[in-house]
Structure formats: structure tokens, C-alpha cells
């Protein structure tokens, strides 16, 4: 088979949203290149996942099944997918850019003497794969020149999941050969961090602070703005990494995902890890001294200036407006 193979990932036995987005990306590639599309589901038993896939997918569904795939391990998944790719010889392999894929796909590609084109945000004719550079400040167009399969992982939210066509799929089982001794890591059960007491996910108004605040001592400035507005205070990763605010206030891929009516970003440049956590916000306002900061790419309103001047002025203006 030459074609496009999409690797599907599940969360609690349901196909994750980003996997449907990967299907949409795969479909786009398959259509533009006139290639057949197939999808792989992976696990110890994949009947229900395959059934769920077939409802929204026309093409072939491959059930990659093995008892040693019950828990995710990089070794298990790399072995299974390596054998699947060797057997089916797809031209393109599309994966969702998740923490799990980031853990094994670079090794899988290397085993094939290939390189994963990671975190792709757009695919255009060629095919040309666009991904972000320098924390979103620039874009890079990549081309695959190798002779083997081209592996691509797509960023969350970059492709529309509802673009995946519905249909009926032919389902087959693929059984990889895996020995227990080949799996070198022992994964434990996932656990939650400190008990979550702040639910940013349901907040209507959020004031979020980033590296631009410079020092922990300056945080009250932003807290006052949040209080004046009646908003929850949130932060980008570096602020929580430094211990200036608790981890539970972090917005982004490793923190909480939010969708408030207003997201006011103060001194946040807008690295992709942050944007994926807040780009569903209805209105984004950015205050930043750098006019090229990527946050302005998704902002509805922007103030280019020194936050140490703008934020106090804004707090005053909001207090005055509220009387």
C-alpha cells in the first residue's frame, strides 16, 4: 500500500479530539495526492476504538493489537508502529502532536532513517509543511526529501476535526511481534498534581501574566488589575516555573485550557504552548512591548507599550468606569 496512515490516540477509551484533527489533516493530504487513507488504533483490544473510528472515516482501519500495548510505553509503541509501517509501507504517516507522540515518534522516525516533521500547523501543496520557529515569532516551511515514509505530527487546533468525512471503513487486525523484555520502561498510573482549587476553565474573565512582569515583586500590579476587573488571575508557564504563582494558575498545554469571554494577556509573548490553552477565548487583549510578539496574531485588541505604565493606567480607568 502506498497511502496516508493516520495514527489515532485514545483518552479513556474514547478517540481524542486531536486525533480527529489528525484524521482531517491526513484526509487533506490523501485527497490532494490521490492516495488511499487508513487509520491505526493501538491497544490490547481495539474493537470499540475501531468501531468508533469507522463511524466517521472512510478508508481502512487497522487494529494494532497486542497485550503488551495495554499501557503506553515508548518501546512498545515504537516497535508496533515500526512493524506496521514496514508491512503497509505508507507514503505519509500523520500523528496528533501529543505528549505521547512526542515521546515515541522521533525514535520511530529515526528507526526508519527518517525525521518526524513535528508540530505542523498547516499543509499546503507540495506538500509543504508549516511549523512555528522561535516560539512562534516566525514560521518555517519544511519539505520531506527522504526516500522512506514521511512522518508528520499536527498541532492541536490546527486542522478542523469536523472536516473529517463520515463513511464506512474496512477493519483489519494487525498483530505486531513484541517481547516483554523489549519494553525497558515501567510506567505507573497517571496521577493528578496538587488538588486543583482554582477552576480557570469556567472563569468568564481572565487576566494572565507572563515573563514581561520581570520580578515576583511586580505581580501585585497585575493582581490589582484582575481585582478591578473582577477577573481570575492566571499565568504562562515561566511564572509558575519560577514559583511566583501556583501551578494551578497556569494556562497552556501543560496547565489548564480556558475559554473565557475576555482573556487579557499582560507581558505574554504567546509561545504556542500557551496559545493552545487560551485560543478558544472569545476576546483576547494583549499588552506587550514587542509589536512582533506572536500573541498579537490572535489578539482582538492590542496595546503596544510598557506594561508598567499601561497596567496601572488601565486599572485606574476600569475603576473609574465602574464608578
Amino acid at each position, binding site marked *: 500500500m502506498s497511502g496516508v496512515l493516520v495514527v489515532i490516540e485514545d483518552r479513556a477509551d474514547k478517540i481524542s479530539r486531536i486525533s480527529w484533527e489528525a484524521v482531517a489533516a491526513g484526509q487533506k493530504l490523501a485527497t490532494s495526492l490521490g492516495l488511499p487513507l487508513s487509520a491505526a488504533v493501538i491497544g490490547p483490544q481495539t474493537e470499540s476504538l475501531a468501531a468508533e473510528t469507522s463511524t466517521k472515516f472512510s478508508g481502512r482501519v487497522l487494529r494494532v493489537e497486542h497485550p503488551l500495548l495495554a499501557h503506553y510505553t515508548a518501546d512498545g509503541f515504537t516497535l508496533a508502529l515500526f512493524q506496521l509501517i514496514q508491512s503497509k509501507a505508507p507514503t505519509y504517516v500523520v500523528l496528533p502532536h501529543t505528549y505521547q507522540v512526542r515521546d515515541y515518534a*522521533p525514535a520511530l522516525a529515526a528507526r526508519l532513517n527518517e525525521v518526524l516533521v513535528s508540530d505542523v500547523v498547516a499543509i499546503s501543496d507540495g506538500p509543504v509543511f508549516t511549523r512555528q520557529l522561535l516560539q512562534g515569532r516566525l514560521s518555517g516551511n519544511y519539505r520531506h526529501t527522504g526516500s522512506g515514509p514521511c512522518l508528520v505530527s499536527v498541532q492541536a487546533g490546527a486542522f478542523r476535526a469536523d472536516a473529517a468525512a463520515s463513511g464506512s471503513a474496512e477493519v483489519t487486525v494487525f498483530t505486531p511481534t513484541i517481547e516483554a523484555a523489549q519494553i525497558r520502561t515501567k510506567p505507573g498510573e497517571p496521577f493528578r498534581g496538587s488538588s486543583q482549587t482554582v477552576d480557570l476553565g469556567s472563569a468568564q474573565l481572565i487576566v494572565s501574566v507572563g515573563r514581561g512582569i520581570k520580578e515576583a515583586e511586580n505581580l501585585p500590579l497585575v493582581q490589582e488589575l484582575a481585582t478591578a*476587573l473582577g477577573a481570575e488571575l492566571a499565568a504562562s508557564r515561566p511564572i509558575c516555573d519560577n514559583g511566583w504563582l501556583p501551578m494551578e494558575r497556569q494556562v497552556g498545554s501543560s496547565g489548564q485550557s480556558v475559554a473565557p469571554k475576555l482573556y487579557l494577556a499582560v507581558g505574554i509573548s504567546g509561545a504556542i504552548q500557551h496559545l493552545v490553552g487560551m485560543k478558544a477565548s472569545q476576546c483576547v487583549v494583549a499588552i506587550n512591548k514587542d509589536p512582533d510578539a506572536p500573541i498579537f496574531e490572535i489578539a482582538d485588541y492590542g496595546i503596544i507599550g510598557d506594561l508598567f505604565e499601561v497596567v496601572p493606567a488601565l486599572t485606574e480607568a476600569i475603576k473609574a468606569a465602574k464608578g
Partner: protein
Amino acid sequence: MKIIVAIKQVPDRDAQVRIDAAGKWIDETDLQYALNESDAYALEEALQLKEKHGGEVIVVSAGPERVGQTLREALAKGADRGIHIEADDLGQRDALGVARLLAAAVRPESPDLLLTGLQSEDLGLGQTGVIVAELLNLPHSTLILHVEVEGADGPQAQIKVKRELEEGWFQTIELPAPAVLTIQSGGNKLRYATLMGIKRAKMKEVRRVTAAELAVDSAPVVQLDRVTLPQKQKSTQILSGTAKEAAAALVEKLKFEVRVI
């Protein structure tokens, strides 16, 4: 235990970046460079493991002459020695090509642990550590916030790591040494170099090895063709004027259009 930390020199976060004339990369003239942030956390984790278990921390980095500065800074923070893979053509190599250089330089050292940051701030591929693990045939784990080693002195050291998952979840993973771990930022508090450390760093060994001497395959299978400015997803209305004027204009918008005041 012997710990190697692979570090990368990247454009400083606050540096102004411009696309170069050929549209292939950024203009590197007068560019300020710094140690990649998650690599700094990888170095910190290594230094703390050494303080606990003894041994040696070696930093390795690939790149042109200027990379020597970043290696010295790592030595000043407490690394024992450095390996500089001299290469002026990193831009022409893909992730596999760069990982091959690192793997070839690391292999003769036979480390117990190889640490690196999970992602670079410039290319952001997030793959180097995992590919090096594959090339060295070592087990690996990624997005690590904390590392514990049991039986560090024995022949069968066991590593226990705290791995970050998405949306506030974590996982503990056990794997045997030697292993490769990619470190997420925020697991530790970064140290600064002391004056004594800076002084000592000057005496420490940095072994230079050229990319040519490592004799690895450098033909890329993935190429960065063109660098462009990102496309705007929304048309941003910029509110200009003094801080006071801009703030007043924003309050108007928040009141009458966004309707949150």
C-alpha cells in the same frame, strides 16, 4: 555516576530576530545568544544528582565557535568538563543529523545518564533527546520534572522519574540506567554561577571534536526551505497613544463591544 547533559545555544529570548536575505533562516549578525531554557533545567538536575550521588557532569554542545561561551557558562555553574562538537553547518542538518553528531560524541563516554532539555527555543523540534536514545539503543523518557536514582554506585542503577502529562496530570516511570531523559522546565530552581565557579571554569577541560571527525551521515531527509513571518489569524485592533489614552480606549471597547464592564 557519570551524567552527560546535551545543551544548545539559542538566540536570546529578548533578541530582535530578522529573517535573513535568503529567507532560509534568521540574520545572525550581532545576535545575542543564551543557553536554551529547558537545557538549563537539565543541567540543574544533573548537578543536583551529582551532589547527591557523586560522580561527574559533562556538558556537550554542537555548533560554531560561539557555542564555547555557553559551554563555559555551564562549567561555571558546576559541570566538570565539556565537549564542543565544532560544526558550522548545523542549519543544513536535520534533527537526525544533529542527533547523530551528539550520539557519536557521547558513545565513547558510556554515561550512566544522558539528560537534555525537552525542546529548543529556536527550532522547537523537541526530538533530539529521543533520537539520541534511539541511536544509542538506550531507554528514554520525556517531559521529566524530577529524577531519582537508586543503587547509583552499583552496576544496576534504577531510575525513577516524574513525567509530566497534559492538563495537570503526572506519571511515575521506572527505567534502568543507562538511559536518556528529556527535562521539562520548572522542576528545579536554577542556580547562578558563583564568582569562584566562573574562575574555576577557565581551568576546566573543553575537548573539541569536529563534525568531520565524528564521520556521521549528514544528508538531510527533511529540509527547512523558507522562513516567513507568521500569518495573522485575527486582525488585531491596535489601541495607540499614551498609556493613559490606550487604557481609556480599551475600557471603551471592554464596555461597549466586549461588554464585560
